[in-house]
C-alpha cells in the first residue's frame, strides 16, 4: 500500500493563529512523530489574498495502514488531541492517497523528523471534484497532458502533490493538488490579465480538460517557516 495522508483544515478564532501554529509545532508535531510510521509533513497558513482567513492546514503522512491505525487508536481521544481541539473552532478532515504520477512520490520526498527552519513557499492549494463519472478521465488528462506542460506554459506554477480522497476520507471523488508558485511575474500575468480566447477554443487542451472538470476551490497558502517540508 502507498503512503496515506491525513489532510486537515483547521478553522481558527481570529487572533489565535500564532498560538495555534506554536501549539502544533511545539506540542502536536512531537506527538505525531512519536508514532511508528507517522510523520508530520506540512503546515500551511492563509496568505493575505487567500479566499478564507483564519485557518491553518496540516498534513500528516503514514507509511501504511498499520501506522495509520496505530496513530488513530492511540490519539482519537488522547489528551494531546483534546488540547489541539481546544485551540480551534472547527476542522475539515480528508484522507488522501497519491495518484500514480504524483510528483511528491516521484521525487521520493523525504519528510524531516521535526521542524526545519527555512524560507516560506507560496502555493495554490486546490480541491477539484471532477465532472460526475470523469475521475479516471481527469487523472488521465493530468498525467498525459498537464504533466507534459512546461513550467512556463503553466505560468510558473509547478505541481508538487496530486492526491485523491480515499474511501472513508471525505468528499469523493475529489483531487487535491498543491502547486508551488515559483514565478511571481508569471503568476501576476495569470491572475491580472485575461487568458487569450484562442487558448480556450475547441481542440485546445483547456477545452479538452473541461470535459473532466470545471469546478475547484483554490486557497492561496504558504508554508510555515518551520514546516518540515516547505
Amino acid at each position: 500500500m502507498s503512503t496515506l495522508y491525513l489532510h486537515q483544515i483547521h478553522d481558527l478564532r481570529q487572533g489565535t493563529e500564532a498560538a495555534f501554529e506554536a501549539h502544533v509545532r511545539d506540542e502536536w508535531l512531537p506527538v505525531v512523530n512519536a508514532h511508528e510510521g507517522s510523520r508530520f509533513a506540512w503546515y500551511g497558513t492563509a496568505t493575505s489574498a487567500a479566499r478564507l482567513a483564519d485557518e491553518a492546514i496540516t498534513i500528516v503522512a503514514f507509511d501504511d495502514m498499520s501506522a495509520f491505525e496505530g496513530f488513530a487508536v492511540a490519539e482519537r481521544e488522547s489528551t494531546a488531541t483534546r488540547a489541539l481541539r481546544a485551540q480551534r473552532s472547527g476542522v475539515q478532515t480528508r484522507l488522501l492517497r497519491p495518484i500514480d504520477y504524483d510528483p511528491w512520490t516521484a521525487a521520493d520526498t523525504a519528510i524531516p523528523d521535526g521542524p526545519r527552519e527555512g524560507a516560506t513557499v507560496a502555493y495554490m492549494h486546490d480541491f477539484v471534484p471532477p465532472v460526475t463519472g470523469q475521475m479516471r478521465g481527469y487523472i488521465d488528462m493530468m498525467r498525459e497532458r498537464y504533466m507534459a506542460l512546461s513550467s512556463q506554459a503553466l505560468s510558473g506554477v509547478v505541481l508538487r502533490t496530486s492526491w485523491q480522497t480515499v474511501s472513508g476520507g471525505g468528499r469523493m471523488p475529489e483531487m487535491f493538488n498543491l502547486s508551488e508558485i515559483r514565478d511571481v511575474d508569471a503568476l501576476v500575468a495569470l491572475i491580472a490579465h485575461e487568458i487569450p480566447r484562442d487558448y480556450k477554443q475547441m481542440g485546445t487542451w483547456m477545452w479538452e480538460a473541461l470535459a473532466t472538470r470545471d469546478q475547484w476551490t483554490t486557497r492561496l497558502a504558504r508554508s510555515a517557516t518551520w514546516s518540515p517540508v516547505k
Partner: protein
Amino acid sequence: MLLIQDVHIVIGREELPFDDAYHNEFAPRVSDDRGTRFAAFFWAPHGGGEGYEAVTLTAVADVDALARHQERLATGDLADRWLELEAKQRNLQSSLHVLADWSPLAAGGLDAFTVDDHPTALFRLDAFTVEGAVSNAVAAVESQHRSASPHDTVSIIGCWSPYLGELAEPVVSVLSRVASDDALRAAFAAPTQPWTGVPELPGARRLTRLLRSVTWSPVT
C-alpha cells in the same frame, strides 16, 4: 443606491458564451430602465476563488426600480435573455445590498455606470461576517478609506451591506482595486506580509475573492 450582487458559478465550457451574452445581449439592455444600471462584471481568476466564478453588480436607484427590474427578469423584456444566462450556470446566488453613500462607486450616481471598452483591472472583494452592529462596521471601513495611503497595494472603492441589515447574515462587503501589476507583484513576492490598504474588521470572519474586471465592465 441599492446594489444587486450576483455570484455565478458558470459551466466551464459556457465561459465565453456566458461572457458574450452578458456583454452583447443582457448588460446593454439593463439600462433601458431609468432607475437601473449594469455596474460590473468580474471573473475570479485561478487562485481567486471557485472555478469559473463570476460576480456581477447591478445598481438600482430605489425599491421601485428594483420592482421593475425583477418584473423585467421574470416576465418582461429581459426574461428570455435571463433564462439563457441561467442555462449557462451551475448556480447563482443573488443578494440585495445598500451601497454606502461615501463609496467612490456611488459618487457619480447611476449614470456613471456605462458599458465601454477599457483595460482589465484586478480587485479584491472582502466579505466580512461581523459580530457587532453592521453600521459600526461600515463606519470603520469608511474611516479606513478616508485615512488610506496612495502607496497602498489596494484602495477601497465600494462598501455595501445587506438591505435587510441584521435580519440577514451580517456581512459587510468591501471592494478594493489593486493599484497596479507592480503592486500585485510586490504583494505576491512577500507572502508573509499583509496587503496594505486592505480593510480590517477585528473579530469578523473574512471571505475573499480576487476578481478581474472584463474589458467592458462599467466598474474598472
